[in-house]
């Protein structure tokens, strides 16, 4: 859900950015973080706790709590709340601690 009317702020329509989320082609806008683009689509579950695999979402928005870690372009543990969305990114929900990549 995006804010359309606001008494103080204006949110002009920005360029659409296409990205892939868990295999599906989806859209966000320029200026979005990965987490905000997913939130706008109603996706709240971003990662899982390591042992009990409990669902985890956005919590701090300052890159401090690791609750929003996802796999972005094959790289695990990306803090999606402080990572800007880019055209063509491939974003996946993370289920484990993350595996080493090249």
């Amino acid at each position, binding site marked *: *859900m995006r804010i359309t009317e606001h008494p103080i702020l204006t949110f002009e329509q920005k360029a659409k950015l296409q990205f892939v989320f868990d295999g599906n082609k989806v859209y966000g806008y320029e200026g979005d973080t990965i987490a905000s683009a997913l939130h*706008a689509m109603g996706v*709240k579950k*971003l990662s899982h706790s390591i042992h009990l695999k409990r669902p985890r*979402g*956005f919590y701090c928005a*300052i*890159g401090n709590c690791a609750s929003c870690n996802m796999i972005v372009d094959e790289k695990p543990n990306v803090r999606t709340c*402080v990572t800007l969305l880019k055209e063509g990114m491939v974003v996946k929900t993370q289920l484990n601690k993350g595996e080493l990549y090249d």
Partner: protein
Amino acid sequence: MINKDLVIIGGGPAGLSAAKLAAESGLSSLIVERDFKLGGQLVKQTHMFFGSEKQYAKTRGIDIAKILVDDVLKYPEMVEVMTDTTVVGLYEDKVITLLHNDEYIKVQSKAIIIATGASEKVLAFPNNDLPGIYGAGAVQTLMNVNGVLPGNDVVMVGSGNIGLIVSYQLIQAGVNVKCVIEASSSIGGYKVHASKLKRLGVDILTSHSVKRANGTEALESIVISKLDNNWDYIEGTEKTIEVDSLCISVGLSPLSSLLSMIGVDMKYVSSLGGLVPYIDSHHETSVKDVYVAGDVCGVEEASSAIVEGYLTGLIVASSLGFKHENYDELYRDFKAQLENLRSGPFGEKTREGLQEIARDHDVK
């Protein structure tokens, strides 16, 4: 290894202000910021600030951020900025490890100002980790920076200024704020903020807290309960509220972990938000040439973070041989501004807290 005179960790109000005064004094600096933009917590604050003109009262936080950022951009030769860069290591010999674009960069600095701010506290209750439960400041970022709503129906936990302000901003953005709950028997924030909410029909329930959250993949409802004078739940007073979002605003704690890495003498001071460094009147920690400014050395407000930044930038520049031409006058002015900001009943806890971490019987 890159060599620098001054590295400032954190590009919020404190870090930016420190860079400005250092530059004015003739000292170059490098600001390292982990977000992709400068401004710290101010970038999401759409409300007008309190305080005096000198700290931009009656100006919206987002506009103060612009002023502070423009102030340092005026010195392109003196102030270097690295955003999207996290300080991940700090060593006693003032070597700093930065993580930028998947690369580690080592910097040797003569002096360091740590201005990493604070993070929001969490509250313990069953299922407090469900998606849909957020820090109030995080929701402010989502709404005011990204233009995205957290959900349709929200309850705010905590009636301090942040809880009250963010509740109002949620309403401005079109979210239904079902109520604000507060564990203490009285409202924590300023009366003006509370009255604004009450006029809009939002109940502020004092002596109440969250007992549990329910939901499988995301938050679906919460159970609140009345508290007795010892903050224990009163049986039989539980009420279930259907919400898809819960905002937690129960205070901030200083992001002081970098200080612990280099063995700075620290103390837990609850009135300052948590673990904070001992400092002298020059904001220097127990490790020589390592200074602190802003929320990291005691959670206060942007106004005091700005003045602490100015003061620290001025002092560090002078200690490295770049004394500002109006040093004495500015020093006195900044000290007086801080004293003024901390005067009165709302500043009492801060004043007491600062006494506890003073390294030289001299308050910061």
